[in-house]
């Protein structure tokens, strides 16, 4: 059952307007629907067969610094989530030519040809690592069908006839550049019959895959091996790292539960398996079980990275499991073992928090994306389980109850670009899909051709993963992911370090060897910190943030704190802990910015000239460093702390394109944005809880 979802074959035929002579096909239609019905039943039976899940008791091995020399001083930048023409949706949206080789050439800074607009394009600052993560489902199949390299399996006469007709329409649509319509009408799910029900997988509207292409394993194997071979060719330890991976694209009734799976291991292990897809199971528990079994069988190690929780309808980080069962300690352990990292920001929006859940956060409404991946329109309803900050709080509450935090994850950004180009630079953004890569083609709906559909203007040009590593190798990057010493930015290369401890002093802020002091006296981002032996001391954070050498200055550094009280209630608060002091945007020269008595700070102002567009670094600071002690620290309360760094306002990609078109900045998005970095949290635990 590894096939393109094909919900309505009759509907597909409506697209064929030119060839009236195909009316004889209508006769087949009734028979076809009968076949589809039997396949749906078949699929449902398979799904229930997967319901038994064994839970692992294995805890992830503790990663420490003591056994390695020095400290992780190399700041590496990469994208863990890039699609190429091997992904069915990328291909149907006009990426026919950007293959994994193109993706690696782009990432390494070499010029490549854009698959849609044929421009010669090049990244401004090359990446240090890349994961080509194509969809496991029908991996490489559409591409192979169109290129006539597909080895299709033997099916019965009737099915082979259906298959031929299906392929005929598919090729027709691709030729007519209507592949997008196929994607929109048939390849994505329909809305649930029972919205908000505990388990979207069992919803009657959750269509199973239709067995129309027969067994495509042979084509997918070829594709996977080509992806592996490209990665092996481009991996250059010390200089550039390629990690093998794919995307498990579970979207029951439009609830996005997608995970990127990646492994630090090479071809010898990866060629022993085929990527696990959501056509095998839509439950993450089954993915984890497969990872465990495959790790045992082949020795390949894995992590899974959830993303786009913002459009998961609350199911990504639920208060129960996806099947509606209570979260147990075993489930929580299994989850944190396989999912130590979450993608918090990417082209399809930012998932840090939503104004509904963080009403006091003036920066909460950043790059919202309110479009579910489904055929039928459903208005966006934010849920706490869609966003990172409410989820980190929920994790503390669950830990208080069952003893293990299922949501103790680090944060990264990634692009999720489908162009083969990991482009996260606002002035050098080459589209979510290949088709929205030019100013003129940004208006067309990307999911549906409708006014309420996502367009290229809605997309956020961003998402990168920053990794503090010992070296630029597969092993070291994977180790940094496991210990969560990684963070997210919305595109700029903002350097951020944070250490938590009890004994820092003011001299440490300006220490030449900032990192050595941090590791010696505290723990880095992604770690846990236990109660001090001197319980009267407040928790301290030693923070240093430096601007992107080619980007905007910094506005401010904030600490986001979440905690749970004795009654199980969760809370959050944001502290402005360091900021650029001068505000030179005022007409009469410099004005000193100061915190109000309630800790608020005036806006930094803006230097953006929207007519060019351009900005200057005459406001903001190049570096912001501080030692902060939590003024409300309560040693008895579980808490997490993460750092958010804000840039001064800069032009959004949509403003560059609006100026190119000589139109007003479109209403879909603001003209300027304050790009940002989110560090992985540091968790504090009272010693009584141990």
């Amino acid at each position, binding site marked *: 059952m590894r096939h393109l979802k094909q919900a309505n074959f009759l509907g597909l035929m409506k697209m064929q307007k*030119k*060839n009236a*002579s195909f009316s004889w096909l209508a006769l087949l239609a009734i028979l076809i629907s009968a076949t589809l019905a039997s396949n749906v039943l078949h699929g449902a039976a398979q799904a229930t067969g997967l319901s038994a899940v064994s839970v692992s008791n294995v805890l992830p091995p503790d990663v420490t610094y003591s056994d390695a020399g020095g400290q992780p001083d190399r700041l590496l930048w990469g994208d863990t989530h890039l699609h190429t023409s091997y992904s069915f949706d990328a291909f149907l949206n006009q990426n026919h030519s950007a293959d994994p080789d193109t993706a690696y050439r782009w990432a390494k800074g070499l010029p490549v040809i854009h698959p849609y607009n044929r421009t010669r394009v090049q990244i401004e600052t090359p990446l240090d690592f890349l994961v080509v993560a194509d969809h496991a489902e029908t991996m490489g199949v559409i591409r192979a069908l*169109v*290129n*006539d*390299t597909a*080895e*299709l*399996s*033997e099916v019965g*006469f009737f099915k082979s*006839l259906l298959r031929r007709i299906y392929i*005929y329409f598919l*090729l*027709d649509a691709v*030729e007519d550049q209507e592949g997008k319509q196929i994607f929109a009408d048939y390849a994505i799910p329909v809305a649930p019959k029972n919205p908000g029900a505990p388990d979207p997988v069992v919803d009657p509207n959750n269509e199973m895959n239709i067995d129309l292409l027969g067994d495509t394993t*042979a084509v997918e194997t070829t594709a996977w091996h080509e992806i592996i071979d490209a990665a092996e*060719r481009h991996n250059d330890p010390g200089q550039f790292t390629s990690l093998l991976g794919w995307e498990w694209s579970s979207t029951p009734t439009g609830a996005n539960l997608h995970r990127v799976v990646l492994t630090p291991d090479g071809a010898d292990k990866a060629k022993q398996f085929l990527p696990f897809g959501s056509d095998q199971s839509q439950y993450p528990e089954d993915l984890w079980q497969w990872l465990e079994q495959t790790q045992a069988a082949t020795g390949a190690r894995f992590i899974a990275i959830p993303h786009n929780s913002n459009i998961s309808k609350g199911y990504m980080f639920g208060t129960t499991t996806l099947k509606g069962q209570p979260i147990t300690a075993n489930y929580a352990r299994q989850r944190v073992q396989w999912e130590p990292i979450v993608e918090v920001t990417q082209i399809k929006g930012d998932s840090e928090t939503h104004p509904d859940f963080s009403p006091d956060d003036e920066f909460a409404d950043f790059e919202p994306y309110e479009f579910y991946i489904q055929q039928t329109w459903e208005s966006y309803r934010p849920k706490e389980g869609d966003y990172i900050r409410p989820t980190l709080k929920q994790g503390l509450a669950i830990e208080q109850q069952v003893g293990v935090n299922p949501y103790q994850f680090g944060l990264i950004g990634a692009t999720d670009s489908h162009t083969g180009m990991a482009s996260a630079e606002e002035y050098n953004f080459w589209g979510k899909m290949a088709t929205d890569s030019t100013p003129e083609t940004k208006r067309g709906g990307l999911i549906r051709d409708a006014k309420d559909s996502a367009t290229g203007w809605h997309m956020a040009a961003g998402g990168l993963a920053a990794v503090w590593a010992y070296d630029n190798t597969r092993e070291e990057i994977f180790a940094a992911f496991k210990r969560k010493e990684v963070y997210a930015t919305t595109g700029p290369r903002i350097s951020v370090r944070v250490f938590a401890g009890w004994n820092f002093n003011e001299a440490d802020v*300006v*220490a*030449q*060897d*900032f990192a050595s002091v941090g590791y010696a006296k505290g723990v880095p981002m992604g770690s846990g910190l236990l109660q001090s032996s001197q319980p009267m001391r407040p928790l301290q954070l030693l923070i240093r943030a*430096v*601007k992107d*050498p*080619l980007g905007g200055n910094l506005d401010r550094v904030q600490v986001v704190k979440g905690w749970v009280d004795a009654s199980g209630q969760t809370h959050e608060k944001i502290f402005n802990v360091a900021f650029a002091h001068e505000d030179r945007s005022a007409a009469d020269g410099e004005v000193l910015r100061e915190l109000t008595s309630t800790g608020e700070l005036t806006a930094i102002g803006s230097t953006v000239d929207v007519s060019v567009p351009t900005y200057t670094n005459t406001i903001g600071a*190049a*570096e912001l460093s501080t030692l902060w002690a939590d003024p409300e620290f309560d040693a008895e309360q579980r808490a997490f702390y993460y750092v958010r760094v804000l840039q001064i306002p800069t032009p959004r990609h949509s403003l560059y394109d609006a100026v190119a078109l000589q139109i007003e900045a479109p209403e879909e998005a603001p003209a300027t944005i304050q790009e940002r970095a989110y560090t992985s949290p540091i968790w504090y635990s009272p010693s009584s809880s141990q």
Partner: protein
Amino acid sequence: MKRFFTEPLLQFFVLAGFLFIVLDLLMPQRLAVVKPFDIAITEEKITEYLQFQRKSFNASDAATLFSAMSASEKQVLHTSYVRDEVLFREALALGLNENDEIIRRRLIQKMEYIAQGFYDDIAPIDEAQLEQFFVANSDLYAIESFVTFTHIFVSEKTPMAQRVAQQLLNELNAKQVTFAQAGQYGERFLYSRNYIERTPSFVGSHFGEAFQQGVFALAVDGVWQGPLSSDYGWHLILLQNKAAARTPELVEVAPIVLADMQREQRQQIKARAIEELVAKYTVVTEPSARSGLIY
């Protein structure tokens, strides 16, 4: 009688009969198509069909498999072949292949794919060819100039700070402070302390353009130099190494050159194959009826 033999109609029939016999002898299968409702089945055709069904193209394997089939299995294969053939011929009879843009595009794609098939004919590239390609495209592999230095930073941009930096410079050179000891002096710079083999654009992005030009103009002489001003303050520099932009030796970049040459060869082979086909045709540009102009 003589008149009978000179009758054109008779001559026509005799000639036609003769041609028929000759054609039947020379190309029997050509005439078979004239019988549109006959489907001739031979073991060759069936085993060829079997290969397509199995997606396994080995004639002897297919023949072995076929001979091992039971009578009922052979019958299934037989029926399936007949059905496919009938549907194909009916489609042709209905003219479904004509004026069909899909089939046209499909055939074009197949030709392009066949042209790509000549990739297999790529001769292995020897060292001399690689060298030749490398020389012809050496600008693609140029290595930028770079510097290796450490620096000591004074964070103010004022003249006072410049004097402080100048005094510190004298101290550093008097004490012969080494590369590794640099961290004991000055203040923390927001980016790195040591810059190892960094290009002008990289140095420029961290310090500003003026500093970049200044540091690339310094000589490698083993002493502390400066102070140079940057966007952030004053810097004392110990320049360890400096390299001008250069074209690398082939051995340094051979894998990249080889990959590029193979990519170019594939493109050339495909283009050449298509050019050869185009050469067989004469393109006539007809004046447009509407405007009377070409195009």
